[in-house]
């Protein structure tokens, strides 16, 4: 290996990739150069559609269906991957170049045990025999701090948690000790407490084996922990590339600066509501269950006019279930939901049209929240017609007003289908549909977690402006504490179906914390590249993420 130290491991020159849509080939990557030395980690960042994943795949000489490499070269260790035959590529992929996908849960074959999938590559590539690679797998699981490393591989993918699966996939990528691993958003789908463990594990193992890696993500704080150097992409063009520290402290380009500034949006906390004020929504002593399984225990909190209450917690903590109880989709076993001080019927089917109108919801996935076969005008127009009884011209005028409110040009968008909009625009339509009912209270269920940070910031600003204009109350469900910091007035922390802490934002973000709140706060990556190292040296590997959580349960 040492004799090649002068030349980079991966050399991409003028890479152009085209994608086919609407009968024509359009260029989606316009000539990107990239150099990666052995043992180096390169972070690729940019918003969706920037071509991050496409470049990541092209580094393996692969393109998705409907894409083609139209120019440039990809050289891996002196081998030209663009012109290489399938047989040649097959001998490299999995053995010397490995790939870790965004969703391990979707990428593992559910019909085979994890370890069988792990040993497949070494056996196929004649790296090692089955028995040895099994032993090696257990060692890797140990290194990645998976629980029961000797046993976990013999489970099926659905029997282990998402974070563990992501680590098992990293172990699988390591199975042939490749020279290059491509991580395609490996932690995007995970909770913060899980993410931090995976990050620590990936970083550790990449260092131990001196593997080169391309780390693709849209989370700047994450890439700051992982990468030696960072390349920023925008719409298939390179914006700039620099060493991590240099990039964070003194970005050159305007676009990079705007990315860096995203997390600075913060709203002032509103004064606490008067003691005797009637809350818009109050949840009182709610116990909820799915069939025989109880998931909520004695959940209570109030939401006042023009206030935003952020409900925080990891997946499975009961945040969304609470929202379902409030909307009446899941009638609780016990407890009351009050709107303006008056108890609501627990089942949404028994609520009046006006009661239904007052509580609206904005969903996490705008893709599934908007009917793909209806135009924007129809989607927003339906609640206008249904609740307000407006028809024809009046209805159209109102829809145009609403589109103006969410900062989309009515003429351009009113006749489009959801598929013709970007993710952020779709989410805006979701907001407009909620506004069309002229509600008092809106539940925002992870509305920004599927969006890029720049777009998410725009949505948060819009929601804040609408709240001021229309005196709306929000229940803001999220697991992203940066979002909480930006928009919330009060915070409710949930864990295992219980409220563990609640109070104004200012109090929540300053110690002393409940241990769980503390864990959540400490798990949010910061832009400081030393953050993860500091945290690890401060707390030790067993006191972060899920490991710490398990200890907490044990107490």
């Amino acid at each position, binding site marked *: 290996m040492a004799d090649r130290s002068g030349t980079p491991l991966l050399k991409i020159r003028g890479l152009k990739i085209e994608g086919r849509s609407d009968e024509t080939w359009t260029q989606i990557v316009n000539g990107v150069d990239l150099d990666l030395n052995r043992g180096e980690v390169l972070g690729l960042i940019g918003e969706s559609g920037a071509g991050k994943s496409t470049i990541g795949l092209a580094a393996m000489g692969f393109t998705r269906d409907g894409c083609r490499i139209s120019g440039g070269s990809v050289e891996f260790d002196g081998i030209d991957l663009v012109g290489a035959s*399938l047989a040649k590529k097959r001998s490299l992929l999995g053995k010397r170049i490995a790939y870790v996908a965004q969703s391990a849960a979707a990428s593992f074959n559910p019909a085979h045990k994890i370890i069988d999938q792990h040993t497949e590559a070494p056996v196929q590539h004649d790296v090692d025999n089955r028995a040895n690679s099994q032993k090696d797998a257990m060692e890797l699981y140990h290194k990645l701090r998976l629980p029961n490393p000797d046993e976990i591989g013999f489970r099926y993918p659905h029997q282990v948690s998402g974070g563990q699966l992501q680590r098992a996939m990293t172990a699988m990528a390591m199975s042939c000790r490749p020279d290059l691993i491509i991580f395609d958003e490996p932690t995007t789908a995970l909770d913060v407490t899980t993410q931090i463990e995976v990050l620590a594990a990936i970083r550790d193992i990449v260092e131990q084996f001196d593997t080169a890696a391309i780390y693709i993500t849209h989370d700047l704080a994450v890439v700051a922990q992982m990468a030696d150097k960072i390349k920023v992409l925008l719409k298939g063009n390179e914006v700039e590339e620099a060493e991590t520290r240099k990039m964070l402290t003194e970005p050159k380009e305007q676009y990079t600066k705007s990315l860096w500034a995203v997390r600075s949006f913060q709203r002032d906390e509103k004064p606490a509501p008067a003691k005797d004020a009637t809350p818009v929504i109050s949840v009182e002593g709610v116990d909820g269950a799915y069939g025989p399984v109880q998931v909520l225990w004695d959940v209570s909190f109030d939401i006042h006019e023009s206030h935003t209450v952020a409900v925080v917690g990891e997946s499975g903590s009961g945040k969304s279930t609470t929202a379902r109880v409030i909307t009446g989709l899941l009638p609780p076993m016990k407890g009351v939901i009050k709107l303006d001080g008056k108890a609501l019927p627990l089942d949404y089917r028994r609520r009046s049209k006006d009661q239904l109108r007052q509580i609206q919801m904005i*969903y996490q996935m705008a893709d599934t*929240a908007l009917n793909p076969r209806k135009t924007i005008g129809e989607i927003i127009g339906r609640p206008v017609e249904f*609740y307000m009884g407006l028809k024809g011209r009046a209805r159209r005028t109102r829809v145009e007003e609403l589109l103006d409110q969410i900062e989309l040009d009515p003429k351009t968008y009113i006749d489009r289908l959801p598929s013709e909009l970007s993710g952020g625009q779709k989410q805006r339509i979701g907001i407009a*549909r909620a506004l069309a009912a002229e509600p008092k209270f809106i539940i925002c269920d992870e509305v920004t977690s599927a969006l890029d940070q720049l777009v998410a910031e725009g949505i948060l600003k819009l929601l804040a402006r609408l709240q001021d204009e229309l005196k709306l109350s929000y229940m803001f469900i999220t697991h992203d504490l940066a979002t909480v910091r930006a928009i919330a007035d009060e915070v409710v922390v949930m864990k295992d179906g219980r409220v563990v802490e609640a109070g104004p934002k200012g109090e929540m973000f300053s110690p002393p914390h409940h241990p769980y709140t503390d864990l959540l706060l400490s798990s949010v990556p910061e832009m400081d590249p030393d953050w993860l190292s500091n945290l690890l040296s401060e707390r030790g590997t067993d006191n972060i993420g899920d490991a710490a959580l398990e200890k907490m349960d044990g107490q």
Partner: protein
Amino acid sequence: MLTFVIEILVAVAAFGMLARSATQTNWRDSSMGNAIGFGLAFLILAYLCYVYFGVRGQFVRWLIQGVVIAGIAGFIFKKIGEFVGTEGSRKIFRSMPVTAAFGILTILIYAFVAIFANVLAPYGEEQIFEGVFNTLPGGDPATGGDPRFPLGTDQLGRDLLSRLIYGARNTVGIAFITTCLTFLLGATFGFLAAILGGWFDQIVSRIVDALMAIPQLIFALLLMTAATTIALNMAADGPVRFLGFIEVEGRTLVTIFMVIIIAVLDSTRVFRLSRAVGQNIVVMDYIEAAKLRGERLSYLVFKEILPNAYAPLLAEFGLRFCFVFLTIAALSFLGIGIQPPLADWGTMVRDLSQFINFAAFSPLAAALPLLAAGAIALLTIAVNFVVDWMLHRSSGLKE
């Protein structure tokens, strides 16, 4: 003989390997099996050419000519579609394979013939000509034809061309009505089962399971036998009132019963599909949003679910139409479907089936039953071409 087979296989393998190594980019990455497949295809093509220019094999010649003509017709139709019509329709035609274009063209022709049957047909459906029975197709007296009847006549002396044209109206028309009824039943119950769930879903699904457990054609035969007896008894003393407003004769009543029986039996398949499709749609957030808005069931089914289920349902409609159509033809062939003297392709195949024995001596005579059979086959193939294409489009595959 064995050595001959081995020689051919070796030749195919060698051809495949040669082709694989000779071409640079596209074939290089193709597997050996792929290359051998191309080799085999080439071999079959060569064999067809040999037969085509040989002495015997009149049917193969007809088949090849038919396929070539169909291909050209499809291609021309596609080209016309690319230049005529709105921007949207032109775009659809540009992305359409020739097979689908041929399928659409064929369906259009069938529809045209069925609608204008009484204008297009030279003679009446039931018109019998004295003394000209069993005329062969071709219209040449030297080969047993008659210029008045280009496709010949049947054993009673009825013009086959006219019967074929009227048959399009009867067979295709009845099949179309049956399929529509099938979908009305199946999709309505399927969507309701998906959205209501619970006991409604359980009851309907178990009834459907029970119906599907019995072999369909045998069940249809059984029910038709009973229905025929009932219908003829009901109409024994002349026309009866059906559903209180139309006067029908006994044999029409049999046809109506047949439509209902096939529709109910076939709707079980549609039920399963629309329930599965519906279940995928009802879990979407936009359905939840509509429910929370307080929308009624009919709005949910027709305005929210149905538009999203069009693609799979339309494809299923095509397939289901073929099955219904074949079931009717099969029942008619067995003598309990569409009742004579109404022209029907299934009945025509049965009536003329004896002529298939003459294939070795006179291809023209054997062609008599094949005309109606060919009409059935052509429509089935055409619909399947279109359905394949629609499924491909709705699945979002590019190539």
